[in-house]
């Protein structure tokens, strides 16, 4: 399987990653080598019997959806570039298009 420049750019858009033009050819080459390498799993006969495996507790249960107490070393206002009236301020969707 071969991944072309357009497909790398498409995946980069899905990943919200700007790729510089000068890096694109190298990325195309390296991604093809990586994907060709991992594709060796295709040669393994599928037995269809294997269940999914995850380590850790048999069942990870969600905790109660109540505010927890993570002790913070600094107040919330110091955690963000902008904070007002108890809220973190972030760029508004569409706001920058209006500029």
């Amino acid at each position, binding site marked *: 399987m071969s991944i072309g420049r357009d497909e790398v750019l498409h995946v980069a858009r899905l990943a919200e990653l700007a790729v510089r033009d000068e890096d694109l050819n190298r990325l195309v080459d390296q991604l093809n*080598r990586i*994907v060709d390498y991992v594709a060796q799993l295709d040669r393994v006969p599928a*037995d269809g019997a294997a269940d*999914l495996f995850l380590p850790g507790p048999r069942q990870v249960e969600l905790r109660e959806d109540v505010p927890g107490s993570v002790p913070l070393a600094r107040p919330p206002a110091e*955690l963000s570039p902008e904070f007002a009236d108890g809220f973190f301020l*972030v*760029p508004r969707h569409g706001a*920058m298009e209006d500029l």
Partner: protein
Amino acid sequence: MSAPAVAAATGARLVAAEASSLNATLHWSQALLDAEARRVEASPGGPLHAVPVAIKDNIVTTDAPTTCASRILEGYVSPYDATAVTRLRSAGAMIAAKTNMDEFAMGSSTEHSAFGRVQHPLDPSRVPGGSSGGSAALVAAGVVPAALGSETGGSVRQPASFCGVVGVKPSYGRVSRFGLVAFGSSLDCISVFGRTVDDASKVLAAMSGHDPLDRTTLERPAMVPPAPRRDLSGLRIGLPREYFPADLHPGVAAAMERTKTAARELGAELVDVSLPNSPYAVPTYYIVAPAEAAANLARFDGVRYGPRKVGPGGDIRALYQATRGHGFGPEVQRRILVGTYVLSAGYYDAYYGKAQRMRARIAEDFRRVFAGGVDLLLTPTTPTPAFRAGEKTEDPVSMYLADIFVCAISLAGLPALSLPVGRTEGLPVGAQLIAPLLEDERMLAAAAALERVVAAEAEVR
């Protein structure tokens, strides 16, 4: 030695390490070390009283930056401490430094740090392994007796082998990851380097146990450092044939022969076993881990984390893309792209689904061998000793193969460690012991017995 004296001596060694261009630390200060000493003096005692421990820079602390060796987190200071850090402090340890690493723990050589590569402490032209190379190098250079790293696919055992120190990965779920910056959540384990098995065991024990802040920790009490075994009598140790290929580096092969002889002389029964799916561990890992990384690293977008860069067009997606394109280094970008690709429409089952099924088969191989009466497994940790800097940076697949003997264990969630067992051409060689799930103590006790008899610093012939 009093805590202030330990702080002063540790600071002097850190200064000397910096002067030697080891580049193993990202943040430390004598003022912070002195503050740690005052805290320890105010509540003396504890199993790690006044022991200086270095911390990989992907484990958060409130009094120093946590950057994951990435420009995208440059200057970030966490508002809370990792549970592992809190527990080490409760046990009397002093946090000595935050250590250099491959960016976001992605790499096998600690060359992928935004703040420069870490040098091998015995040969500056070589790599210390990775991704926890800074922690491994600091312990190997004698700066600290123990350090924390993190494992996703061998990132403590592999550098421990390259640097000639002990590196222990616990069973998945025995140590809280609260405060460990997530890479591959079904794989990540905070792990330990020590000069000796005993050093590493004490640090691991102090951190272990259930944590309500991490729902993936197991409901088990904290570990107790095991008493070292006098010998290995009564133990059946399996030698999986897939981990002893014909093209194994001759120095590594010779060191393993010596280790097998030592184990037999200590009374162990060595038996040939097979883990037929382990050869597929690296391709499986390099689908599963990037897929999880692509999801976990989505939060570094210039809004939730990271210095904002405004991209062309000036909209919110341009901000995300410019911030991430500028802030992530080449290896992190590669893995995010691979992870996004294997999860994308049309490819999910061909790659991710297949890798998940292979992961189950790899884990089942281990379960079957242990259920068949084998107590531990013994393998080389790495196929070669430390390689030269720059040797593999342009060929990602070649770099990934440095993890060929460590990946499968991570996929199966098992405990494993690397023990220094000799040197070839002056470079350390590590042997890997692997235990069944939750048999960490059995593995540590056996390793301590082997440690007493293998001449870790002697050249193998």
